């Protein structure tokens, strides 16, 4: 087996909260996460708000400094690499943001926005910057003649394409896409997913695709990691996760999605309550406060993320579910 493109081991991010009179508290946003992404592979990072998926993504591109653990990219430890050492890395590792309205500078033309990564990294493409930018705009399905327009002249879907063109400018090997389609209308969302799929195949890009929508992830990712309260609870190949999930949380998440192909109320697993606060996560298994199978051992011993009951995926649960989903 070849060396993975990206390896994440025991990644931790704690945010200190300046509390009141008590000792300063810690928000355990990401609390020990391990995964790998091979070249050209797409990994989906899914979970509900507050599970730490965005924080993880931001640490990967080093927009946030990890509190602990290790990130290795192509064999190099980049966990705490400094600015200078990061520069070559930035070429290989890019990010696409969720909000296409906030992530583009309204005072810059599209041409300037897409050319910025080239300029910052002092790259002079053969044929000139302008030609390269036109090529990129065309690649993401925009009219290259719109080079001199400003972001406000574009719709949400087109702006997201601009963000994608910018991420592709340096020919990265891995792209972290943080909810790239969740701000878009349904019909536009499908256009952008298809575009990302096509680019992924043609350019053999690796992706860490962060999303809360499991249906979207199913159409884009080969492997899927499900996060809950700062930890990965289940990770494996797409078909294993969607057809025979073992973690009760994954099952609950899948059955909560309203499916347009089924009319009327479905036999859902009903989770009660909310996700607990990451300031003071439950002991043992973090899902136990909402889990219908929880026993004493779930409160005392944290389940390890290992293969269980002959499943091909890794599951962190003492009482994994069995069998295929209906």
């Amino acid at each position, binding site marked *: 087996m070849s060396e993975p493109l990206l390896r994440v081991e025991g990644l931790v991010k704690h945010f200190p909260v300046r509390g009141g009179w008590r000792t300063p508290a810690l928000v355990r946003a990401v609390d020990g996460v391990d995964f790998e992404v091979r070249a050209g592979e797409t990994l989906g990072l899914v979970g509900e708000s507050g599970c730490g998926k965005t924080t993880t993504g931001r640490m990967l591109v080093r927009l946030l400094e990890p509190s602990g653990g290790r990130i290795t990219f192509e064999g190099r430890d980049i966990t705490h690499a400094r600015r200078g050492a990061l520069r070559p890395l930035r070429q290989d590792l890019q990010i696409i943001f969720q909000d296409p309205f906030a992530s583009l500078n309204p005072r810059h033309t599209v041409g300037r926005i897409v050319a910025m990564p080239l300029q910052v990294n002092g790259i002079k493409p053969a044929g000139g910057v302008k030609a390269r930018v036109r090529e990129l705009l065309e690649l993401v399905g925009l009219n290259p003649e719109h080079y001199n327009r400003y972001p406000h002249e574009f719709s949400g879907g087109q702006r997201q394409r601009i963000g994608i063109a910018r991420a592709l400018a340096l020919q990265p090997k891995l792209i972290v896409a943080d909810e790239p389609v969740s701000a878009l209308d349904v019909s536009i969302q499908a256009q952008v997913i298809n575009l990302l799929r096509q680019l992924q195949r043609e350019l053999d890009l690796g992706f860490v695709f962060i999303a809360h929508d499991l249906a979207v992830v199913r159409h884009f990712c080969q492997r899927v990691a499900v996060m809950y309260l700062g930890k990965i609870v289940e990770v494996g190949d797409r*078909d294993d996760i969607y057809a025979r999930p073992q973690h009760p949380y994954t099952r609950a998440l899948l059955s909560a999605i309203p*499916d*347009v192909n089924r009319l009327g*109320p479905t036999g859902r697993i009903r989770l009660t309550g*909310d996700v607990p606060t990451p300031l003071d996560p439950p002991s043992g298994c973090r899902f136990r406060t909402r889990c219908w199978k929880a026993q004493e051992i779930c409160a005392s011993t944290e389940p390890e993320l290992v293969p269980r009951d002959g499943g091909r995926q890794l599951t962190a649960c003492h009482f994994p579910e069995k069998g295929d989903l209906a």
Partner: protein
Amino acid sequence: MPGLPHQRVDDGPYLRVDDLKVRFDTPDGAVRAVDGVSFAVDRGRTLGIVGESGSGKSVTSLAVLGLHDPRRTTVSGEIRVGGRDIVGRPEEEIRRLRGRDMAMIFQDPLSALHPYYSVGRQIGEAYRIHHPDASRRQARQRSVDLLGRVGIPQPAKRIDQYPHEFSGGMRQRAMIAMALVNDPDLLIADEPTTALDVTVQAQILDLLADLQAEFNSAIILITHDLGVVSQVAHEVLVMYGGRAVEHGSVEQVLRRPQHPYTWGLLASVPSLRGAADADLVPIGGNPPSLINLPPGCAFHPRCRYADRNGDRSRTDVPQLRQVQERGHLVACHLAEPERKRLYAEQIATAGADR
């Protein structure tokens, strides 16, 4: 000046909207946000209004509640709530209906709740406005009851907390409690679960269904999510460019859709079933600008079948007409047999979701 009657006994639908038009005059020209939409909702039934941004679905609901600023908005047509036409009625009169006979649940509970007042005070205020004789204690008791009814644990304690002390799902429950405090007959929910996580969304949708069964209220659910519609709606209205393009029972619209736009929406939704590696089938292009709506059928620039009628799709606005099946209305120039054939041959079998 005679006021609106308190409640007229009426056998027909609780809400009837006829040829509703809403126009905003802007410096760039007139925006026809809603252009001739009609629908009705019975007690105990849920109408799902589906559309993308700019389709006019939220503007429609604000018109029903009389929330448009008359200085900037021209509303015409008829909106009958419990038998009373409210279009053009003075603000004073509509205010007496709003909150008592009809109430709204907004998308973002954090911006719809006031951060400065406790949750209980806000719910109690909504109650006392319509029950001027009620004492503070009665209003408080009523608020506690409702918070408990919508599933907030320890309501007597939570009532004195502020919105920021509630989680997203709890806030949405508090807002539902506030909407229900006067037992409204009509509840309008505008994207009530869009800001919520999917496990919490499931809880809120269940709650709305339970409450409807208990109070027999008419509900309008506005959403872009066809999955949500398929789960809770009885009837569906699909809007595009300020007009209704398809209308019927949830079975008719989602199982036997006849409008190419509805087909497009269904095919572009990623699903948990079917081939995961198949490309989604998006609708090309972008939703139209309401200032400069395409002539003829507003959907024609994005429609794959627009050329099958000569120039008709480009020149004539298609009327919403009943198809063979009773209660199913479609606004499309294609002939019905052709629509059925196209759906059976190209749509029902293709796409990633089947």
